[in-house]
């Protein structure tokens, strides 16, 4: 395929992208049950279609400097919590994000190297970077990320 369909979402000020084929669906606010003894980036379990899905906080795991901005962004859009339900291998995980934009078709030759500063663990899990005019999207390597974050 010469085109990659990516779903764009934001964590704080930064925009990221995921391969569409990995995404099951996008859901809103969920009833979360915290699980004690799990790492900080695992926020708990929520029910979806009869299954218990773990909720993963990528901002925390990737140690992104979202901090206060995230809080503000969340406060702005407290009515629209977004969880992207992804599946990789036999794992199904819900990823907590700030905002979900659209699905973009990106030709493979437009995928470039990372130019923006990548602090923390981001550099490990970033596949490429795409300039969409309005946004600069960092495409993530989801299987690798989930593998590293699994408990």
């Amino acid at each position, binding site marked *: 395929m010469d085109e990659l369909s990516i*779903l764009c979402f934001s964590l704080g000020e930064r925009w990221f992208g995921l391969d569409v*084929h990995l995404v099951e669906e996008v859901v*809103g606010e969920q009833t979360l049950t915290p699980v004690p003894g799990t790492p900080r980036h695992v926020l708990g379990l929520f029910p979806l279609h009869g299954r218990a899905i773990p909720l993963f906080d990528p901002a925390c795991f990737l140690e992104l400097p979202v901090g206060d901005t995230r809080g503000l962004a969340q406060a702005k859009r407290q009515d629209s919590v977004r969880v992207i339900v992804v599946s990789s291998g036999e794992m199904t995980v819900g990823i907590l994000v700030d905002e979900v934009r659209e*699905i973009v078709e990106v030709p493979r030759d437009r995928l470039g190297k990372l130019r923006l500063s990548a602090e923390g663990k981001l550099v490990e899990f970033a596949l490429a970077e795409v300039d969409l005019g309005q946004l600069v999207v960092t495409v993530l390597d989801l299987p690798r990320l989930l593998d590293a974050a699994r408990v």
Partner: protein
Amino acid sequence: MKQTGWKPSITAKLVLFNATLLLCMAFLLFLMIYWLQSPSGAALACCLLLLLGLACSYWFGAILSGRLRRINALTQRIADGDLKQEKLALRAADEITEMARAVEKMLDNLRSLVGQIVETALSINPASSEIFASAKRQEHNATEQASSVDETTRTMATLLASSKQIAESAQVVLANAEKTLLSNQLVAERIENLNAQSQRITEILEVIKDIANKSDLLALNASLEGTKAGEAGRGFSLVAAEMRRVAEDVMGSVKDIKDLVSVIRQSSHAAVLATEDGTKLSRQTTDSARQISLITQQQQTGTEQITQSMDDLSELLAQSVGASKEATTAAQELMQLSERLRFLVFNFKLGEDRKAEKPA
């Protein structure tokens, strides 16, 4: 006059004198007749003796009338008002001397009496002048007081009129404040109503927002499936994208409406505050108006009392003025009388050291 003992009287003197004369005449006659034994000589001697007797009578009478004349002169002087002291030097102890003494005594008494009158007149005159001046001053004062009281009464009347006006105005203000209070209440009710409606709007907006949110998710997931389906799902993805846009528009409108509702709420809140202020002001105005009413009532009562007192005072002063006028008239009469008295006593002469001043 008591007549104890033998007092030489004119009658006695006269009888004695005549007897002596007659005896002398008789003796001489006898002598003539017996010694000269000439009847013509005796007749001549008789004539001579007769002439002698006449001369002596005349001389006796002259002395008598002379003494009487001196007494008469004194009494004339007294009658003219000259009370200078004079002692008639009459030695003979008879009725005429007694009369002279009596006249002298009368003169002394008169002089002392008149002297006392003069002194009194002298002292009355300045005193009566002072009384007159003082009575005039009192009259003047009483008149001034009366006019002051009049002015006070007039001022009181003006005060009464203005406090009546104030009371009326206060009534009007009270009525207006109560009307304002009522209309404020109405406004507050309307705003309450408005708040309830905007609350409803907010509730409905929440529902709409929820729906839009769900639509957004739905459209997103539809788009996802469409993309995953590849070529077959392209049309589907487009439709889903449209739906997302609709959902976004709705969310945008909901936000706008929410902002508007917020503005309305702020305005109505401000209006409530304003009406509360207005109500507070009206209440204060009502209280003030009531107070003013009360005070003007008290003022009215006070003014009426003062007017009454002024009337009483006026009456008293009128009486006082009347009395002062009478006193002045009396003092004037007194002054005139004392002037007359001075004029009268001026005519009496009392000697060098006790002259009555010439009346002015």
